[in-house]
């Protein structure tokens, strides 16, 4: 039977890519290991190697095709003795590879397809904006950008503006960023301002803080925030506390940024949400954007801020696109939440990738006649208590959504603030939807269960509405 070649994923979070080039023609013999095609995403270009021997039977996706979904059949390989006629029998087949079908066991097919590709569960970022961001003048032209590009542009603009700004971290220069967030910066700014470090988070975080104490404005990239644990002492004891310990004489303007939270299928040590860890600490500001526009505007603000800022990105969101205002200097103030969707029945509060679940749930709830007001916190410290409280005074109900663990989490903090400031307005207890109280499992089905879901948000919202 002819073998299908599927569109491969370059990373656990890749959903689609472009088929840049075919290196083999139909009818050409193929050996295992031959490079048959090149595919690309906004992050990288990769060669597709054949894993089977035979003849390239038919090219199903022509070169130059954009946005080919992962696992789409892109070609067929004919084994010895097979002819093009055998292809006809095969065209109706589903793309799911046979081996995976077997391994998935007794789970129903629909669940399997989702489990094999968990991020297909995350919708392509519903970015329904009910209220225009007050910072953007009416009539401003918008450009569509990925969050990755928006972050890169924010850094590039600030580096053009201020010679004291530089980027350091693992693979930020020559490699163009492990997640390609620093793409092109080395070429524009040179090796003195875009600095590859050895894999020594504790040391280079300390060097970054020391440089900031001397007046420079470093952007320290952690390949992921999981690795920032090695640098925690420098972040908390040196960066966050020095201004206070010096009686206001000496502080440090430094941004620590990188992907935070669950990626996909990378297990416990690479999937953790550190929102509550950093938001616990006075002296730090903590920013965690969801939209492309916020990613850009808030990163620019973080770089200009005279305090240490923890800038929590999300790997799953890097490739998501959104509208970014085409303004010369788009800076969003740190510390302001945004009402992304207006509603009167229940307030849903989240940030970063939690917004994915919150917004999807709001769509579902609307179908059942429940109008949810969705707040994107954007900044976790200082927290915009006023926006939360005003909304809860209107709705009387609140649900928090976070990928992190519930105990001592940001949701717990929000619940406490609502109780302190709007107790008399509450018609139901504040409810938390969070990551489950376990280290992140690897297995696809368990991982999905460990994370919050839109269904859980819907359930929680209905519960507080007594529906």
């Amino acid at each position: 039977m002819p073998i299908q070649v599927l569109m491969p994923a370059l990373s656990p979070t890749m959903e689609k890519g472009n088929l840049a080039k075919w290196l083999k023609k139909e009818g050409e013999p193929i050996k295992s290991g031959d490079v048959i095609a090149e595919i690309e995403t906004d992050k990288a270009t990769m060669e597709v190697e054949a894993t089977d021997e035979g003849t390239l039977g038919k090219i199903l996706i022509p070169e130059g095709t954009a946005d080919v979904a992962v696992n789409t059949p892109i070609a067929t390989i004919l084994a010895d003795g097979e002819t093009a006629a055998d292809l006809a029998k095969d065209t109706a087949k589903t793309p799911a590879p046979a081996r995976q079908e077997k391994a998935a066991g007794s789970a129903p097919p629909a669940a399997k397809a989702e489990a094999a590709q968990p991020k297909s569960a995350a919708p392509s970022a519903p970015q329904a904006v009910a209220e225009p961001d007050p910072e953007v003048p009416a009539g401003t032209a918008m450009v569509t950008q990925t969050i990755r590009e928006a972050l890169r542009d924010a850094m590039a603009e600030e580096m053009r503006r201020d010679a004291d700004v530089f980027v350091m971290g693992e693979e930020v220069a020559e490699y163009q960023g492990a997640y390609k967030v620093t793409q092109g910066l080395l070429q524009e700014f040179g090796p003195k301002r875009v600095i590859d470090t050895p894999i020594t988070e504790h040391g280079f975080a300390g060097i970054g803080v020391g440089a900031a104490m001397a007046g420079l404005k470093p952007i320290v990239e952690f390949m992921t925030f999981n690795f920032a644990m090695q640098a925690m002492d420098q972040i908390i004891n040196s960066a966050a506390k020095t201004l206070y310990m010096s009686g206001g004489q000496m502080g440090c303007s430094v941004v620590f940024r990188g992907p935070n939270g669950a990626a996909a299928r990378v297990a416990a040590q690479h999937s953790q949400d550190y929102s509550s860890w950093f938001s616990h600490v006075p002296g730090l500001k903590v920013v965690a954007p969801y939209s492309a526009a916020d990613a850009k505007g808030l990163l620019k603000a973080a770089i200009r801020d005279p305090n240490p800022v923890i800038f929590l990105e999300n790997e799953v969101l890097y490739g998501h696109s959104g509208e970014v205002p085409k303004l010369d200097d788009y800076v969003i103030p740190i510390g302001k939440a945004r009402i992304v969707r207006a509603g009167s029945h229940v307030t849903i509060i989240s940030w970063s990738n939690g917004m994915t679940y919150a917004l999807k749930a709001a769509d579902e709830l609307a179908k059942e006649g429940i109008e949810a007001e969705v707040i994107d916190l954007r900044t976790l410290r200082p927290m915009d208590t006023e926006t939360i409280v005003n909304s809860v005074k209107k709705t009387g109900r609140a649900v928090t959504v976070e990928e992190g663990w519930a105990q001592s989490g940001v949701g717990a903090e929000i619940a406490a603030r609502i109780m302190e400031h709007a107790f008399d307005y509450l018609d139901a207890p504040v409810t938390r939807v969070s990551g489950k109280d376990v280290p992140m499992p690897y297995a696809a089905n368990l991982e999905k269960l460990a994370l919050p879901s839109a269904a859980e948000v819907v359930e929680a919202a209905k519960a507080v509405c007594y529906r």
Partner: protein
Amino acid sequence: MAAPKKAAAQDTSQGTSSGGSPPKFTREQELAALRDMLLIRRFEEKAGQLYGMGAIGGFCHLYIGQEAVVVGMQMALKDGDQVITGYRDHGHMLACGMEAKGVMAELTGRRGGYSKGKGGSMHMFSVEKKFYGGHGIVGAQVSLGTGLAFANWYRGNDSVSVAYFGDGAANQGQVYESFNMAELWKLPVIYVIENNRYAMGTAVSRASAQQDFSRRGASFNIPGKQVDGMDVRAVKAAGEEAAAWCRAGKGPFILEMQTYRYRGHSMSDPAKYRTREEVEKVRHDQDPIEQVRNRLLAAKVSEQELKAIDAEVRDIVNASAEFAQSDPEPDVAELYTDVYR
């Protein structure tokens, strides 16, 4: 445990050498060194008294015995060079030219202290005097000091950063992460390892596989040197050599200062891990202040002139103690200031 070895600038570096007895000081240099070391000693003695009276709280780590290290190094530096150290920091601040009043008032937690009373013994800073703290986490100042050197490299000035740390901190992981990057990027930083033979109560021989700290940078190709840290002239000479190395763009340099602390690790340490005889022997044979005083007397400087220096130093210290006890505590409104700027 033996007293600090008299290492006459043992050279373990590549092609740098001095050897023999250190270059002589001029009379003015001797007098300046004496005065600066005396100021530190008298200041620390007074701090110890105030601690005993309950005027100073928490931790208080005295520098008595090690004065030649920071005074000699400071004589080797020039304007613009930065200094950073750990928690045994009073001597460094005074040597950098910070006022005794402000340091002592910080020790007593008063509003006139360098950190308005919010930092205490281990956390004082002076951007003006290029003193960057005052850090309480053992070894953290080494990465931070490397960052100060990074800033010099980035700006292309010819300033040098001096990062002081002890024989205990020399075993921390981030020290070697910093060594690697400093040499890789040729950052102008002098790592001064103040080997006072004890990390709190643990003798060097019980904690360090490689006890020659000048060689701690060997695997990164960082040159190092063992220096008699009780002889202010040897310290200054080594400091000048290291600074020249850094300013020439050759990267970091390690100086192991062989020194000794007479007092306990902190005020609450009875120092049972060493004998009284060991301490007395160092005091008698190698005291950094007595060395200078004896040389000055031999050079026919009058007792009277030396007494005048004593008196001047005592006046400064007494005034600082008086201020530190009469200055009010910080305004309660200060509790919430300086968290952000």
